[in-house]
């Protein structure tokens, strides 16, 4: 499985649509992965999503993701997990271990959705990665 994560330094970028670099990781069954950073530059929507699809990416881990583009991501076969923060490689590891919470579908529930973070690093951050239901 190939996943991508937009970068902001070594952290996941707050917005996929503004990220200039991504980390593409090929997950292996033994829990390891092979990774390569790539430039997205100022590639506009929807080309940046189509670029991921061309790379064979099927999962996108990100902070913010404009919901307007979610149907396109789905049609391209890319599952988007948003609302994440923290170290990019820790997130890949957590996803690989099945410890990333899949966010609820858009359009359901009330304010505060997407909360219950996935970070866990640094002073003042709350709890570890969530166990997937």
């Amino acid at each position, binding site marked *: 499985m190939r996943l991508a994560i937009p970068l902001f330094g070594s952290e996941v970028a707050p*917005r996929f649509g503004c990220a*200039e670099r991504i980390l593409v990781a090929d997950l292996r069954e033994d829990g390891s992965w092979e990774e390569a950073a790539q430039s997205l530059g100022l590639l506009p929507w929807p080309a940046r999503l189509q670029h991921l699809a061309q790379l064979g990416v099927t999962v996108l881990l990100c*902070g913010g993701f*404009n919901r307007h583009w979610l*149907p396109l991501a789905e049609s391209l076969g890319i599952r988007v997990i948003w609302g994440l923060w923290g170290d990019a490689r820790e997130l890949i590891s957590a996803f690989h271990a099945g410890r990333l919470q899949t966010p609820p579908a858009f359009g359901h529930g009330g304010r505060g959705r997407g909360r219950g973070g996935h970070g866990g690093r640094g002073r003042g*951050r709350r709890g570890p990665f969530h166990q997937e239901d």
Partner: protein
Amino acid sequence: MENTDPRLYPLILDALAEGVLTVDPELRVTSLNRAGADILGVEPEDAVGRRCYEIFRSDRCQEGCAVKRTLATGEPLRDQRVEILDADMEPVPVVVATAVLRGEDGATIGAVEVFSDLREVETLRRELSGTRSLGDLVGASPAMRELFRLIPVVADSDATVLVEGPSGTGKELVARALHEHSPRAGGPFVTLNCGALPDTLLESELFGHRRGAFTDAREDREGLLARASGGTLFLDEIGDTSPAFQVKLLRVLQEGEYRPLGAAETRKADARVVAATNRDLEAMVDEGSFRRDLYYRLRVIPLRIPPLAERREDIPPLVERLMERLRARTGKAIETISEPALRVLMEHDFPGNVRELENLLERAFVLCRGGTIERRHLPPELLGGAAAAGGGRGLRPSERAILAAETLPGDARRQSPEARKLVAVLEAHNWNRTATARALGIGRNTLWRRMREYGLLKGGGKDEA
């Protein structure tokens, strides 16, 4: 405030209509008031301790963050317009002001960010100006307002739609808006540019093929019709298809069935078809180059987008929307366009329509070093007279250097009459080389050679879109 009990400060902050967020020098949130929590969709206790960009998710967080600038310079910033994503990933326009926070000893202990939700203001402003928007479409003209009224109504049915309009007017945006307002919105939106491919390839792309159907068919391949199942299939440049292909497409529309190349059985099609053309299909029907039965099948519901020159009142809201997008894309804090520059745009005929306007603004964003796009940031040929001959005259030295870096060495070649004619035809055909070559009556290879000669290829100029 000197006589106010500090214990009342949280209550006072919560009574404000604006969001108020404070951070420490490492950008960790130290407080968030009620209004801020409502705008961001996050509870204050969940926000505290997190980096501000993790909950603010603005289009400036990664490049051009106002809080960072204030912390670095100590200077307050006002009226910074940004777009954030709330917890539902809904884009929210906000205006931001920042100031540094100092302790009793004068040392910087953090910054405060005050932000207001602009959604209501923008809706009211659009109402007052008559501007409407739908998806990525925006306009104030009667033609566009009628389009915005029709799209949600038309989207509800599965009827085939034909979108007519010149190149660069946003036909795909109309198709996308139809898809997004339809019951098929959860399904895929698949695009096929019919003018870009020769017949056999077009059929293979649309219907798919079985292994061995033709020389290069080494494995079974699903077509776009199958991939669009449950969603919408957008067939662009439908007027460029051959009569043989038109027959096959007609069968899909009439019988809801198709046969992949090399397959023995037919398959059911389950995609809503939206077609688009920049050609006069009715005239093509009259002259016999487009099938009348297919024309009527496609044109169950016709939607027309007029050229931008016929709806100049759409230019200001389009400029605003495009600048918003360019700000997000480039991270540049260019907030406005000057009146004289806007007047130049309003007077231009825009043969390339909205796409041309977008290109002009993109160029202006590259050149502009301040917060306002001025007349001098527009191409000389739009300004007329001495400016047109000057090629960059009026630009500041730093802007001229940028222009030189952006346009040379191919610029001189690209300014020749032959090159400009070629660019005009390419623009008219959406930089599609097959269609351009056909329009010019030359082969694709000859076209490629000419594009190379004039520096219009990748690396030496603009490449095919």
